[in-house]
């Protein structure tokens, strides 16, 4: 799958799509594919303060539990409640299924993240290790 170029990526397999000072966060196609059938998404409540690189939630498949790492610092402004009842949407449309929205503390933080091309290379290297 081609990774959308309208956003940035982390080595922990999250994506972040900024729109001015706010941003949506989700997990990548590679992440959903590695996890398998996703059955549980747990994220913090609106108002929670997140720090870049720190865990902010959990995603679980039938088989595995995986931490979510925040790509950037900021305050949670919205939570995708649909994923509480239909977590399988993350498998079907990983890049369209945002998990949280953030008011970014420092939008420049995103400059240090991976581009779509760099992320794709990173995934290929990880697979070929």
């Amino acid at each position: 799958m081609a990774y959308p170029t309208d956003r940035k990526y982390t080595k922990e397999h999250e994506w972040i799509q900024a729109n001015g000072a706010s941003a949506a966060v989700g997990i990548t196609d590679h992440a959903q594919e590695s996890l398998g059938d996703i059955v549980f998404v747990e994220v913090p409540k609106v108002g929670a303060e997140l720090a870049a690189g720190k865990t902010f939630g959990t995603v679980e498949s039938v088989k595995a539990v995986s931490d979510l790492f925040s790509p950037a610092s900021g305050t949670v402004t919205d939570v995708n409640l649909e994923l509480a009842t239909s977590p399988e949407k993350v498998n079907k449309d990983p890049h369209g299924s945002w998990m949280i929205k953030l008011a970014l503390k420092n939008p420049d933080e995103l400059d240090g993240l991976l581009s779509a091309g760099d992320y794709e290379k990173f995934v290929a290297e990880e697979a070929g290790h």
Partner: protein
Amino acid sequence: MSSVEATPAIRKTALNLVHRQMGAKMVEFNGWDMPVEYPASIGCGIINEHMAVRTRVGIFDVSHMGDIRLAGPQALAAVQHISMNDASRLALGQAQYSAMLYPEGTFVDDVIVHRLASDEYLLVINAGTREKDFNWVRDNTRQFDCAVENLSDDFTQIAIQGPRGVDLLEKLTDADLSAVKFYWVTRGTLCGLHNILMGRTGYTAEDGFEIYIPADEATSARVWNEILGAGKEFGVVPCGLGARNTLRLEGKLPLYGHEISDTINVWEAGLDRFCKMEKLEFVGRAALEKAKGAGVKRSLVGLEMTERGIARDGYKVLEAGGREIGYVTSGSPAPFLKKNIALAYLPVEFAAVGTAVKVEIRGQGAAAVVVPTPFYKRPKKSA
């Protein structure tokens, strides 16, 4: 992500390449490179594979399981000595669930004992305990006139599981499978191979068969593909260890290292009905008699989460007040039941159905309740 540990040469079944070509996600399981699930692009994934077995049919490569053959004039006496069920009750072609025990009454392994001939038995054992089991059987049967052979590498073992499993397999064999009852075996020609052992057994809490074919790669791949081809009309899918685990958990079938181990005894595991104390002697019997007299302190119970959260292997179980009282041996979402379930060891005073407990998930207690087991029981066919 987890670090990669150095392991002594990882083992592969004869179907390894076939799994890889089908795009299976491979994992290490007890020293074996095994498929955990097949890709969504061919209608698979743990949930789809699980549902296929409950409603149609799925096939599993279970060649990592071990096989020990005991044959000779005293084969029955040897089997009786090393296993807790009563093998003297087995007719020719019949099989039984049993276990081998240490003198302490704890588990060496659980096992399916097949009576293949009047003085020939086949024990099918777990992958992770193959060498340990074989050495243990050999060492504990020396006093009997009976040959003990490790046939583990001789077979590719394929499980065909689900309500349509019998219909699928019938297309490929001349054996009359309708005459084979649950936990019986037969032999016949299968995919052109003569004298193939087929047992109506499995580890999915569903009807189905396990077949034992020669372990060469070409034959194994041919039979695997012929089964998938013949099963198309029944909606067959290949299934990995992920679905195997969720299926066995719904049926409360124990897994070595989880529900049974060398520190858990038969009474705690609730396997009483497979342990025949009326047998005068078997390894572990004396300790079990003593343990029963002393009273059983903990037992294996089924839990269902009543709050959001998934119990996982090793999670702590707490009483309502927050005190730790036990642990989860196996926990997972149950794809067919659509609930989050778990098996756990709890003190007997917490084992009654309806008892409210909590499971500690990432530092928080999530509510659960003790429920009857097995969680899933297959519907009885009206004959």
